């Protein structure tokens, strides 16, 4: 499988939407008074682009994703998401930015007391929509990711691959403009990993910007996509 993706704004099907989805300028990040875990990070994620974020374990991939997700604030530099500079952002604006993103966590973060159906429906439910208004959408997506027969099951009873697909379905249900995935294939066999990758590429073709954090070079080699490589606290862009 060798797939070309829409790389960067140049491949965009939609004109006039070339404002970066994410822009980092000289961003530094430290926890407390410790040393900087990220230094002078500058990059952009263009609309409809597909890229990998890679680097050795502990290089700061998850920290970088947290900065994009706005769950951590940079120690210095400028982070803007969907054209909005995030320092001093209001709580309401933060919520509306997050609603435009989907995220797949490495450890899935499914809520164990909710059924698969309820977990996948969560992003729509927190928007205040009634259950009847999104039922068909959720069932459709669950069937499409192969969880049609497992929608009543609680996450602790799902296999690793099923949890992965439930987490991905939850990230996709609200049709995000930006999808962030942290090691989305880390817990599944290579065959399922490839199928999930195809899913992300399909999403990207439909217009979602995708950033996949992984250190699985075998997976990255399947796709001709830009690579953001973290190492020694700095970021290098390849491709």
């Amino acid at each position: 499988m060798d797939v070309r993706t829409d790389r960067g704004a140049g491949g965009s099907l939609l004109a006039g939407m070339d404002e970066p989805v994410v822009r980092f300028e000289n961003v530094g990040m430290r926890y407390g008074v410790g040393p900087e875990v990220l230094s002078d990070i500058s990059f952009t994620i263009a609309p409809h682009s597909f890229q990998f974020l890679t680097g050795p374990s502990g290089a700061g991939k998850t920290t970088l994703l947290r900065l994009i997700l706005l769950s951590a604030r940079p120690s210095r530099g400028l982070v803007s998401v969907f054209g909005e500079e995030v320092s001093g952002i209001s709580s309401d604006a933060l919520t509306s930015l997050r609603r435009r993103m989907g995220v797949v966590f490495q450890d899935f973060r499914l809520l164990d007391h909710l059924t698969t159906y309820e977990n996948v429906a969560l992003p729509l439910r927190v928007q205040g929509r009634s259950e009847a208004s999104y039922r068909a959408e959720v069932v459709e997506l669950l069937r499409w990711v192969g969880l049609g027969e497992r929608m009543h099951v609680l996450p602790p009873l799902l296999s690793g691959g099923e949890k992965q697909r439930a987490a991905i379905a939850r990230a996709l249900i609200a049709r995000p403009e930006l999808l962030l995935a942290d090691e989305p294939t880390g817990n599944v066999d290579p065959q399922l990993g490839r199928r999930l990758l195809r899913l992300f590429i399909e999403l990207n073709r439909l217009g979602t910007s995708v950033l996949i954090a992984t250190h699985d070079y075998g997976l990255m080699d399947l796709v001709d996509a830009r690579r953001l490589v973290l190492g020694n606290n700095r970021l290098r862009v390849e491709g």
Partner: protein
Amino acid sequence: MSEGATLERAPRAAPAADLPPALRRNAPLVPTDSSASRALAAVIAILTFLAALCAGAAEIVASSAAQWQGAVAQEVTIQVRPNPGRDTEADVARAAALASATPGIAATRPFSKAESERLLEPWLGGGLDLGDLPVPRLITVRLGSGTPDLAALRQRLAEAMPGVASLDDHALWLSRLSTMANTVVGVGVAVVALVLLATGLAVTFATRGAMAGNREVVEVLHFVGADDDFIAREFQRRFFRLGLRGGAIGAAAALAALGVGGGLARLWRASPAGDEIEALFGGFAIGWRGYASVVLIGVIASIVTGVVSRVTVRRFLD
């Protein structure tokens, strides 16, 4: 999920009828069934029970005091002291006549000498010859519907029989009774307020505990786009339900306790113990106002629980 599947090919609008009938679709987002929840519901139930009992007791005292006051305020007493050289019987008759002549007096009833002596029996014992003792004579005067001018009656009695006849309108006793009843009601209200405050504090700590215990849930809710208000509402809903359960159990237990107490008081009515209870409480019944206040305390406890949890969550998230 097939290898070749695409988003465009995904089946359109699956009919809702295909859903498994037992599928749970709208479970509370904050887990509800935990030992901490049960403990909090128990604490709210106990506090509500105590507050409701306290309110019931205050209501019994207040309504009994009101009955006593109503009964006592309908009567005044004229006391005629025996005076050497005066005809006490004539003084009694004259005082009764003066009272009867006053507008607004419904009836007068002079106590005979024998009746007056009998009034002393509880203190002096029976079988005594009290004939030589100057026992004061009493006339009970029942007031009518109007407001008789008691000051004028007192004045006339003092003028007609100076140092012999005096009027007691029970004002001192009534004011003491009223002070006692007000104090009991005030203490009851203060205890109810304290118990509600304690409920609020217990809920604050429980909410903080629940927030800490559900940190992951809160984080996921934030990531999927929930705002602080939505999260606070979810916690409030959970705690309001707990409060409602605790409040209902506590109020029901208090109603049952008051009902059993009333039943026992009725059973014992004929016995000496029943007489004592009757004398103290004037009938162990709290009436609809008492029952309503017990139910109201249960409802207030639930509302306090919901509101306090919401405020606590908002502060926690800010």
